[in-house]
């Protein structure tokens, strides 16, 4: 630059220099802005919380399902009743069948396409399943209900929608109202600005923004929300730069996903996809014109036009959008008329499946936390398939709430409870209820109420004894009479029976079936406390187990969930299958990331486990569980055990069928006497819970090492049918006594006479 002396303040040289400096600064500034715009836009990752879904409802011939279930499902999933069920998310009744148009979803097995299926229900079961357009269907799944999203740390929530998924009417209405020149301008619309200025001058204040969608996006994306001049100065060049680098569809799609549309407590509702779910309970694709108009209208002030808090104002705004859209030719006069006639149709915040099952989500959260960092869970949009069975969950909530309301109306005595239900074959946790008010997000008793389990410990004692088949079998007598065990510091442990009576020598089976404390405690002491503790460990108890004799009668404290873990091997005949609340994790695009597969670990001697299970069946037939007779179908064999803690503080029932296991606890949070027993408080709830889900019977066919044997009442000699008080027991071969009463011709079902003699030789 030539140097030329000058004294004039206004010399041309200085002006040029100043201009140049200004231009350089401007260029640098623009370059900086450009880099800012590009880096942020290119690397932009939506903050997408992980979404948790319930187990999809499977439809197949023979599945237990009645019209009440269907009504519940279509309400929860917000299916519309629509003739012919032509669009996803709709259903219709046609004669004796139903049409369901499912929505489709992604899963590790590829998931399901949206499809129209014809369903016939008869006698409380699915009696026919076919494609609506013909062709048989073997299995179909309804899309899983979203039951929660995991967003610790930050509060933005959204469901990403692609432009091609977005209803064209939404886009057209949006442009008609917010930015008519969107496809013509290059980020800034001077016509729009001029129009807004005129309108504002007329109104005497700022009423219209005049901003293009691009400017609005810049504002939301990079700039603070306050309307300052400096912000306005940056907004213009950034909008132009954005348009320079990116195509209109990209900008539009980002806009649709970025916009703020409301608040749900700490959760900010962003994007049209989530707003559709939040306000209408349905995916964006399924919304009608009047729904879409409301969403477009709300952009100007989600609080101001909140359809739940200010329905009249919201409706006026919606109608304004509809009319403007008609004026712009987006919708016809007929469409306008139809849409104006519709109410807002906003769903209440409660009533859907989302956030309805806090106790279960709590479990999912804890299981996820073991494998995923909080940042991953809150931002990557993971799809989490959980094991929750919505119908089972609702039934369990209902059973607990009704029973406790009957026993303790209005909670005046502080009686509360918890339920856990699982499918032992897969270890799936189907239902978790942590409070009689199931929607309460407070103390999760199913996971965190750690209470003495009472007689629920007794099957562990029986199992431990039976694993020594040469010494013990179910017919062997145990002493139900007072005894004392000296403890440290001169104390004495002297167990008592609930009825304060003692029955003397009784078969081990009866001691369990009738929950005789003295009989079971004396057996436990004879077998060895240390061995019982080992069994409890093998059953999956992870807490420290104090080596006190009182653990034999359940001074051990566990949560209902831990009891479900402990009873799992008893339900499966000796296999530990870890309980899982999650089956699959997929990424945002539906690619499988992780599976939590079913496993089965043999942890108990299977012959002994069969006998323990069988003795728990007898609990239901003739013992403390017989009060349930008639509640479940007669052809469904179930097994279980009652539990009651000291002072009637805790009532338990834990039991299982061939395909479900449930644990019920009833008590008070303050651990005060509640006047409850396993039989009178927990068992009826258990019965209701189990009766509400399709049951498979427990098989009573013994494993190869077990035989049916008639035993004399003395428990020491074999006998035969019809001889005195002889009873039939399943026995491990090593247990079968060689002594016989020599009554009758047959020693055992398959062992009497000459054939039996040969058989014994062979065995």
């Amino acid at each position, binding site marked *: 630059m030539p140097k030329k002396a000058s004294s004039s303040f206004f010399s041309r040289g200085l002006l040029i220099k100043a201009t140049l400096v200004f231009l350089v600064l401007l260029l640098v500034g623009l370059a900086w802005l450009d880099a800012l715009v590009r880096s942020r836009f290119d690397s932009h990752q939506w903050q997408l919380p992980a979404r948790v879904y319930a187990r999809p409802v499977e439809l197949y011939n023979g599945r237990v399902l009645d019209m009440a279930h269907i009504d519940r499902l279509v309400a929860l999933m917000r299916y519309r009743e629509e003739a012919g069920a032509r669009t996803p998310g709709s259903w219709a009744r046609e004669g004796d069948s139903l049409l369901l148009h499912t929505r489709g979803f992604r899963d590790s097995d590829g998931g399901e396409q949206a499809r129209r299926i014809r369903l016939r229900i008869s006698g409380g079961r699915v009696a026919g399943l076919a494609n609506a357009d013909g062709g048989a269907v073997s299995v179909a799944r309804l899309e899983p209900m979203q039951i929660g999203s995991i967003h610790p740390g930050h509060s933005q929530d959204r469901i990403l929608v692609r432009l091609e998924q977005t209803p064209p009417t939404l886009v057209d209405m949006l442009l008609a109202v917010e930015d008519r020149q969107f496809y013509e301008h290059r980020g800034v619309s001077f016509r729009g600005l001029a129009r807004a200025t005129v309108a504002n001058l007329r109104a005497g204040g700022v009423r219209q923004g005049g901003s293009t969608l691009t400017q609005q996006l810049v504002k939301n994306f990079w700039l603070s929300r306050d309307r300052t001049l400096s912000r306005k100065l940056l907004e213009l060049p950034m909008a132009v730069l954005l348009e320079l680098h990116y195509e209109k569809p990209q900008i539009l799609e980002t806009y649709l996903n970025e916009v703020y549309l409301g608040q749900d407590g700490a959760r900010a509702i962003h994007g049209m996809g989530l707003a559709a779910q939040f306000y209408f309970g349905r995916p964006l694709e399924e919304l009608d014109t009047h729904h879409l108009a409301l969403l477009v209208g709300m952009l100007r002030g989600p609080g101001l036009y909140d359809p739940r808090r200010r329905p009249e104002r919201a409706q006026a705004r919606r109608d304004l959008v509809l009319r403007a859209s008609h004026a712009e030719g987006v919708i016809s006069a007929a469409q306008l008329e139809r849409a104006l006639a519709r109410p807002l149709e906003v769903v209440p915040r409660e009533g859907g499946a989302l956030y309805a099952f806090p106790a279960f989500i709590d479990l999912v959260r804890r299981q996820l936390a073991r494998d995923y960092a909080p940042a991953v869970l809150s931002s990557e949009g993971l799809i989490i398939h959980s094991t929750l069975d919505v119908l089972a969950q609702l039934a369990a909530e209902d059973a607990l709430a009704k029973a406790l309301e009957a026993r303790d109306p209005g909670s005046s005595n502080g009686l509360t409870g918890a339920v856990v239900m699982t499918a032992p*074959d897969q270890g799936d946790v189907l239902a978790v209820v942590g409070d009689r008010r199931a929607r309460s997000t407070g103390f999760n008793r199913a996971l965190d109420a750690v209470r003495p389990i009472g007689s629920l410990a007794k099957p562990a004692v029986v199992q431990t004894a039976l694993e020594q088949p040469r010494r013990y079998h179910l017919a062997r007598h145990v002493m139900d009479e007072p005894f004392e065990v000296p403890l440290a510091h001169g104390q004495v442990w002297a167990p008592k029976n609930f009825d304060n009576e003692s029955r003397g020598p009784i078969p081990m089976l009866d001691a369990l079936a009738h929950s005789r404390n003295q009989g079971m405690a004396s057996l436990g002491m004879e077998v060895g406390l240390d061995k019982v503790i080992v069994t409890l460990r093998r059953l999956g108890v992870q807490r420290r187990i104090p080596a006190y004799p009182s653990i034999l009668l359940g001074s051990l404290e566990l949560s209902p969930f831990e009891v479900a873990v402990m009873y799992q091997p008893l339900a499966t*005949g000796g296999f530990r299958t870890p309980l899982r609340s999650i089956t699959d994790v997929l990424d945002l695009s539906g690619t499988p990331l992780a599976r939590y*597969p079913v*496993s089965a670990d043999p942890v108990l001697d*299977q012959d002994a486990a069969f006998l323990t299970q069988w003795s728990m069946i007898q609990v239901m037939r003739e013992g403390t569980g017989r009060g349930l007779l008639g509640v479940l179908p007669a052809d469904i064999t179930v097994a279980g055990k009652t539990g009651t803690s000291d002072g009637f503080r805790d009532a338990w029932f834990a039991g299982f069928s061939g395909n479900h296991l449930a644990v019920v606890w009833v008590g008070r949070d303050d651990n005060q006497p509640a006047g409850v027993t396993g039989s009178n408080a927990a068992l009826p709830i258990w019965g209701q819970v189990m009766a509400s889900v399709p049951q498979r019977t427990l098989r009573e066919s013994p494993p190869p090492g077990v035989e049916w044997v008639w035993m004399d009442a003395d428990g020491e000699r074999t006998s035969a049918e019809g001889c005195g008080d002889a009873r039939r027991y399943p026995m491990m071969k090593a247990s079968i006594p060689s002594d016989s009463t020599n009554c009758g011709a047959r020693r055992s079902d398959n062992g009497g006479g000459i054939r039996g003699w*040969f058989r014994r*030789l*062979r065995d």
Partner: protein
Amino acid sequence: MVQAASRLNSVRVSALRCGALLVLLMGLAACAVRPVPTAPPEPVEIAADSPAASLLQAARAARSRGDLSAAGRYLERALSMGRGQDTTVLYRELADLRLEEDQPRAAEGLAMRALRESPANPAWQAELWELVAVARARQGDEAGRDAARDNAERLRAELP
């Protein structure tokens, strides 16, 4: 393991007894006493028209194209709707899958579970014991493998 060993023992004992019996009766009387099946036992499979059958088929197809996680998901779904002897078939299929996924320990447990759910069908049970043997061998448990093989042998010996 313990159980397998004790079964092995009982096999030996019954062999001894059977020998004594043969000497005693000097003939084939013992074999006549034995409940000899007249025809090979029915194959253990899932009823073709059951919903579990179509999922099993889908699982096999997924496995053959190398999509093991899809196969696992199909099988577990089938398990939740299975009836009767479906479960033994599905646990066996899961065990096979775990072997392919190089999870022999899990495979062994699932094969044992299939055995527990199995009907009294020696051919089927022998195949399951063979599966257990493979799973044990892959874990380096040679004694366990041999015990499982012996069980399979014994069961096959019961076949006509």
